[in-house]
């Protein structure tokens, strides 16, 4: 299954979203939280992101979602030089994108399909 990494400025936000997505999609999908800066501060940390990607990777690829601004920069920095497309940062709403990606991964879909589902979450209405 495609692994999922959730990068947030807040460790609680990343962890809570990982719990929510696991609750919906099931625990067989690897969903890793990568939240917070050094010492538990609000922020993002390249080492935390790098380790989360390694834990999430089961060989079928990894989708990375980021909450805001500099979280994107942190992920891009971590992924610098990785051009094989095995780990993909997707431009998607954080909560909806994570849940959509998790369900598609749990259904056994391939990386491209999981990426597309996360990106399409942008257009989804909540009600």
């Amino acid at each position, binding site marked *: 299954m495609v692994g999922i990494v959730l990068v947030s400025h807040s460790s609680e936000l990343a962890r809570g979203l990982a719990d929510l997505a696991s*609750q*919906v*999609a*099931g625990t067989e999908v690897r969903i890793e939280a990568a939240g917070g800066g050094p010492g538990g501060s609000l922020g993002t940390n390249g080492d935390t992101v790098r380790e989360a990607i390694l834990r999430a990777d089961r060989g079928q690829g990894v989708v990375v979602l980021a909450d805001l601004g500099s979280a994107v920069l942190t992920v891009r920095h971590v992924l610098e030089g990785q051009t094989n497309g095995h780990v993909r940062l997707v431009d998607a709403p954080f909560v*909806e994108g994570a*849940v*959509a990606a998790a*369900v*598609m991964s*749990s*259904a056994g*879909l391939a990386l491209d399909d999981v990426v597309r*589902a996360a990106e*399409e*979450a942008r257009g*989804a*209405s*909540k*009600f």
Partner: protein
Amino acid sequence: MPASSEATVTLPAGVALHARPAATFVKTALRFRSSVTVGSNGKVANAKSILDVLALGAHGGTVLRLSADGDDAAEALEALKGCVSGLIE
């Protein structure tokens, strides 16, 4: 041969189409090639999209209208009817 089929099925009492039950439903739909929609309360959702299905807000006891289009449409609807009938919280 492409075909379309329709069916209705009622959500078990006390089981809303949210979180885990919704994902179970979507994962069943994803097993088939046909495009599948699910309708309730005047809304229609892509049965293969968890966000679409969650947005239906279907409560227990709601009648769902299933529609499938494709070469395995009949099989998809049979599987989804069975899935919905067997959903638990």
